């Protein structure tokens, strides 16, 4: 755990200078679902040895298809595990947790102090994030009033100013969630998640439920607010188009592990891992010929994952070693890590 003495105000304005501890650092995290029915134990290794860091003022993207473990990873990071999900190994460090404390060890009072002020969330379904029987104003009071302080008019002025960042006027405060369009609701949740200027915002498929026409506006808004507030954003979505549009760095997850991580542009222009290559090659683009891509098989069953590299049964470059050993994420170029024996130059 990094104990950073920097004051709050300085931290927000920290730019490239002395290397600073990352906002979030995940090290060899393992989160398994463990069930026992009729004496039969099953273990699903949804997150199996994931390591990455989210730095200051960046949008870090995490891409993966269904059953790649990305939602489980978010739950483990946010300490939102419920049985049968258990974190069985590894560490999650957040810079704002002072001392040697982990989120898992925090008491509920401590969590209440951290949540929304230091760590906040933008969820997929904005309807379920907002209380349907309360006006939007009450949601802001519930979430933010105790962190921001101020009462009555002073608090409202802060909220209205912040709503301006997402181009909403104060009229929405008196609306019920169902009276707003999907795009407006998602903008309200973005405002809620950022009003306390948290260090880290976790966004889980923030635009998946939105209409195509609205999606781009909401993404633009997420970027604007993130840049202005200076929070770091961990953005998880299966949609590579969103990653290409929004993220600074990108990691691709497959079968519970990260297979490649690089600045987004590098990953799109020169992916190395065969799975990342396939994924990026299969993106259709207007004005280009149809990608002819076929990858045999389907995603691995994480209850009985294949030994060695989890991609080897579908991999065109699979070697004998891939069936036996697990490749680790290895740095192949500055900021570019890949987990593959064939292309990663691992001895």
């Amino acid at each position, binding site marked *: 755990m990094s104990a950073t003495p920097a004051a709050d105000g300085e931290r927000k304005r920290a*730019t490239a200078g002395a290397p600073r501890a990352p906002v979030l650092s995940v090290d060899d995290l393992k989160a398994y679902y463990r069930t026992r029915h009729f004496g039969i134990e099953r273990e699903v290794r949804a997150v199996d040895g994931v390591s990455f860091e989210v730095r200051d003022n960046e949008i870090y993207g995490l891409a993966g298809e269904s059953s790649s473990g990305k939602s489980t990873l978010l739950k483990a990071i946010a300490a939102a595990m419920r049985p049968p999900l258990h974190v069985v190994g590894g560490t999650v460090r957040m810079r704002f947790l002072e001392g040697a404390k982990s989120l898992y060890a925090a008491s509920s009072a401590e969590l209440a102090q951290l949540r929304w002020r230091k760590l906040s969330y933008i969820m997929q379904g904005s309807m379920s994030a907002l209380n349907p029987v309360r006006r939007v104003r009450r949601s802001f009071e519930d979430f933010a009033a105790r962190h921001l302080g101020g009462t009555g008019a002073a608090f409202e002025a802060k909220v209205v100013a912040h709503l301006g960042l997402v181009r909403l006027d104060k009229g929405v405060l008196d609306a019920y969630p169902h009276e707003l369009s999907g795009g407006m609701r998602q903008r309200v949740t973005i405002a809620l998640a950022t009003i306390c200027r948290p260090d880290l915002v976790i966004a889980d498929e923030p635009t998946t439920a939105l209409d195509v026409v609205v999606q781009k506006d909401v993404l633009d808004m997420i970027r604007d607010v993130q840049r202005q507030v200076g929070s770091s954003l961990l953005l998880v979505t299966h949609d590579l188009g969103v990653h290409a549009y929004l993220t600074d760095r990108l990691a691709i997850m497959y079968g519970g592990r990260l297979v490649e991580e690089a600045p987004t542009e590098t990953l799109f222009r020169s992916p190395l891992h065969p799975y990342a290559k396939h994924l990026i090659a299969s993106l*259709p683009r207007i004005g280009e010929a149809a990608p002819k891509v076929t990858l045999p098989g*389907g995603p691995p069953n994480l209850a009985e994952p294949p030994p060695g590299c989890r991609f080897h049964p579908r991999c065109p470059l699979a070697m004998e070693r891939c069936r036996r050993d697990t490749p680790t994420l290895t740095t192949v170029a500055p900021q570019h890590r890949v987990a593959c024996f064939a292309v990663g130059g691992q001895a």
Partner: protein
Amino acid sequence: MAPLLELTNVSKTFGGLLRRRRVAAVRDVSFSLAGDSPEVLTLLGQSGSGKTTIARMILGLETPTAGSLRLMAEDIAALRRGAARRRLLGLVQPIFQNPFEAFNPLRHVDHYLLLTAQRFGGAGYGPEAQAATEASLRQVGLSLAEVARRYPHELSGGQLQRLAIARALLAKPKLIVADEPVSMVDASLRMAIVNLFQTLRAQLGISILYITHDLATAYLVSDRVAIMRDGEVVESGAARQVLTHPQHAYSRQLRDAVLVPRFTAGDGDGTTAEAKHRPQL
């Protein structure tokens, strides 16, 4: 030759009478699919534009408030009920959005393929239905050995959607109506499924009505597109023409909503995308 499918001034309004709000889901839509040469026609538009309502009317699941829908010169209104419905489903087969809901979770998936082979495909029981099923699975890149005696939850979304297409093929339809068939399928499998549409058109002579909000896949597999907004077709024509040079303001708006990687914008002029988008702190 009569068109395969012909919609003439079709409108559909929901609600009315006791309900205060009437919703005009489809307004005065006309288009047709050629009867002599199969084609892939895409209906494009955002949610609420009336795409699915049109699909449901073609499948006889809704009746139009006004106008007529004809399938090989026969009125769909006459085909949608009773014994004639089997004839309708022998001509047009659906593929729905959510492959996980398209199969009964309590039955093996091959059950439905064999059933369709017997009912609509003219195959007899036993080995004949098996052979027909195997042949149609091959068409979509699967085999009976892979899917026999499997439950839906044991298969991926991509596999299930291929199965749904294989099942539709067993009825030997002239037209497949595919309503958002890949929006719930993983990106790495999406193109493989969408590419199937052109294969089916070329090899089996089946026309496809592809319904989607995704311009990129529409561009790649359609011969023609019709762009819908609020129940109306605002622009239609050859897919490449309409999608690369949209004329209507709304088509352009849809085209502009497509996410393009922000780094492609920085090409060639020496500024990196990074530099462009970094705020001045």
